[in-house]
């Protein structure tokens, strides 16, 4: 292939973050361009059509489908109150009438003279979309939402669970090598996003959720613990909708792995500052990585212009992380990039690179098995 693709996760102190915040259906946009927003500011709102219910009205009131027109009191499109008589037969001399009362407030959608069924629909439910990060409205998407923009520190993880949350950052370990167990989670962590080290156990995560912690960032997590915490196995990496109180962002991968020093230092630097966290992960076309966003709304654009370099892929001296055994989790710098295909131990032929790890040892690794640490 002409292009070498090496997945890189962004861990950068200053970048321009743009978040497209749109409704699932068309609705009203409540913000304007240039307006400053907070994570909980409502950007747009709409109404979801109410639940439709199919009722076999013909059976309910004992009338042939073709005669339903004579007993239904409302026309399609008309609304009704809860408990209202929607259909009633004449009975015999006004007695023995069959009656159908509506189970909720809503409207009549349709009546079929063939099947004897009618569809009634409940009241619309209001929904809205919030800003998620602090920033300014950069653009409006008419009837759908807006784009929120801010200068921010962006830390992308490799895998996460749980949805969008925000809270102040708090460090609970002394070093990126330190694993987190239950004893680290305290009452005063309620509403915070915690910075952990190399690992978190299922029990510690459950305790955090219980204590009202908003989110946790750690280097590694165990698949076994993931199953234990969620109560099921994640088959396909599409997450974010889990109903858990505390969102989790794993920065390195599965197993106990020291959090990359740069990531740990960056998070620690902003301890006490409000941040947004989202565990949503999707690893298919249209990749979504979990993230922590620490906005700096009052920084000038120049700062990001200096730092926002385009990703250049793997180069000599690039800082890389090995992402598959036998070197999984090790960090080093590229010391050579042989152009020809090399035979691996598995006998596959692949393009490789030579890495010098932090401890000075060197190894040959397939290029597909490293990722660039973008700083």
């Amino acid at each position, binding site marked *: 292939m002409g292009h070498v693709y090496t997945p890189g996760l962004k861990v950068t102190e200053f970048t321009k973050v743009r978040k497209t915040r749109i409704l699932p259906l068309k609705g009203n946009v409540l913000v304007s361009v240039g307006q400053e927003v907070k994570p909980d500011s409502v950007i747009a709102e709409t109404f979801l*059509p109410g639940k439709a219910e199919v009722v076999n009205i013909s059976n309910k009131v004992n009338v042939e489908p073709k005669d339903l027109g004579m007993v239904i009191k409302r026309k399609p499109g008309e609304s009704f109150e809860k408990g209202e008589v929607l259909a009633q037969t004449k009975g015999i001399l006004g007695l023995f009438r069959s009656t159908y009362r509506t189970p909720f407030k809503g409207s009549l959608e349709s009546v079929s003279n063939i099947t004897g069924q009618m569809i009634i629909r409940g009241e619309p439910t209001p929904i809205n979309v919030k800003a998620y990060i602090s920033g300014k409205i950069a653009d409006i998407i008419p009837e759908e939402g807006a784009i929120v923009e801010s200068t921010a520190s962006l830390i992308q993880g490799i895998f996460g669970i749980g949805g969008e949350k925000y809270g102040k950052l708090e460090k609970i370990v002394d070093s990126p090598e330190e694993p987190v167990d239950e004893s680290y989670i305290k009452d005063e962590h309620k509403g915070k996003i915690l910075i952990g080290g190399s690992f978190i156990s299922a029990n510690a995560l459950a305790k955090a959720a219980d204590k009202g912690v908003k989110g946790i960032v750690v280097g590694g997590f165990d698949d076994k613990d993931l199953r234990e915490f969620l109560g099921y*196995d*994640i*088959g396909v990496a599409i997450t974010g909708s889990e109903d858990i109180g505390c969102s989790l962002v794993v920065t390195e*991968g599965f197993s106990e792995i020291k959090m990359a020093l740069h990531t740990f230092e960056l998070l620690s630097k902003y301890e006490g500052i409000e941040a947004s966290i989202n565990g949503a992960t999707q*690893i298919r076309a*249209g990749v979504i990585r979990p993230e922590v966003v620490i906005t700096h709304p009052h920084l000038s654009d120049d700062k990001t212009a200096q730092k926002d370099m385009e990703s250049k892929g793997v180069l000599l001296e690039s800082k890389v992380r090995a*992402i598959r055994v036998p070197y999984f989790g090790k960090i080093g710098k590229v010391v050579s990039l042989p152009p020809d295909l090399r035979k691996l131990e598995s006998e596959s032929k692949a393009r490789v690179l030579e890495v010098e790890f932090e401890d000075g040892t060197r190894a040959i690794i*397939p290029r*597909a098995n490293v990722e660039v640490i973008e700083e």
Partner: protein
Amino acid sequence: MKKPEDINIILATDCGSTTTKAILIEKKDDEYRLVVRGEAPTTVEAPFEDVTMGVLNAVGEVEELTGKKLINKDGQIIRQTNGDEGCDIYISTSSAGGGLQMMCAGVVREMTAESAERAALGAGAIVMDVIATNDNRLAHEKIERIRQLRPDMILLSGGIDGGTISHVVELAQIIGAADPKPRLGIGYKLPIIYAGNVDARDAVSEALSEKTSLDMVENLRPVLERENLRPAREKIHDLFMEHVMAQAPGYKKLMTWTDADIMPTPGAVGLIMKTIADLESIEIVGVDIGGATTDIFSVFQNTFNRTVSANLGMSYSVSNVFAETGLENVMRWVPLHLDERDLRNRVKNKMVRPTTIPQSIEELIFEQGIAREALRLAFLQHKSFATTLKGVQKVRTLADTFSQEQEATIVNMMSLNMLVGSGGVLSHAPRRNQAAIMMIDAFQPEGITRLAVDSIFMMPQLGVLTEIHPKAATEVFNKDCLIHLGTCISPTDGGRDRKDGTEIMKYNITLPGGKTESGTLKFGEIMKIPLEIGETANAVFEPGRKFDVGQGKGTKVETEVHGGTVGIILDGRGRPLNLPDEDVLRVEKLREWLLSLEVYPESILKD
């Protein structure tokens, strides 16, 4: 478009969800052959959002490799040959942007709804869900489901002609109540194809014509005994072009470049498989195991079937294979002892970093163990779907009364002539012997079966080509597309009275040059006899009285067998293939088989 006889240079692309592949075919000495292939990342997603960029990059690579000029200065494909410039026709398939995602609906799940599903799958769709009157879901649950899924289109069937009207209309009303919105493009109506009872057309139209873009085609199950899937499939293809493709970024432009309609990738693969099966009068099974999904195609009794196992794959879905089959089932194929916690983490790490490759041999063995399970599960699904029509009245014998099986699968491993594999884990296995053993273990072919892999997955492009130039398509398929692995001979027993070492088949194979290989195959062993690609050998197989190699138990078979990169494989492990329960014995047996076929380096198996 030019007449077929005037077509000398063919350019074809397949826009996959991650890679766009281009191939160039040229006629030389009255024969069409693959000249070169190029590939580039697909550019449907942001930041590019224009599929034609990936197409031009892939074609650009073909230009570099051949020295031909195929793209003009305006950035368009030159479809007029002039010396070293241009091609005669350009065609393309696509599965980018998630392919074609459909829902199907029918009255009875096992009858019209299943026929609708078959029509959609055959057209190359991913079927997200099948709604049926008898699927045990309440109406509001069905409505919620339709809303949630947002398919590209819905195929509604139900009722034989002259049969039920009310049930079909009920389904139409449910779809209408859901007021479904298409996945792509906010401002247009969702296409719905009605292919059910003709008598219900007016009522269906009343329920759906305002809210959706409704099309009517002939009933896909006009009588219980017969399916008529073609009109529905053709309509799906038309709507795929008109609605789905037209909404995807850059496709409007691409559609003006191609000389034939852009086809969904799996639909095109189905076409080539069916063409080959028809031309050579063979029964065939093909599999494409990808990162996210596994597609299986088969032609048995002249009937084409396709299934997609949406969440069985080797990278994005690898964790799901594990979740569905369990660690034990994967590990039974692995002749090594590995730590469970570590393995589970490895699988998840592959899921979150799907582009990584096994560096160590131990990793490769483990990954190929997972592949066997993904293939096995996908094939089980395929077998249960590829059946004779359900709901047809039959005269049942007393024996049938005691049989649990209601409808027999038409997949017959004994009559199967060829098994074709494709997808990274099979096509790029470092040793071809690994691809062969993975397919044999997962599919368990019976009797005499040829094995092949599609080395660079060009079946999609050849599929579209069969529509406009069948000669070119079949020539390239036979000469350049397939890499023949050889022939597998598996005497089949009933699984009873098995004992390792029992003599189960005598063989006598006359190789090219006159040399003969003869001997006795014992139960529990597997061996290979070299026979090169393109070579054939005359063979005589005499199975024991309890064993069958195609002509019945104990019946001698004289036949010609084809060679390949692996050769002739004599598989005496019985069908179904059972591995020893006891761990030490199982590992010992696996090592013996893998050594005999030279699947992995001796050093790792002899430790």
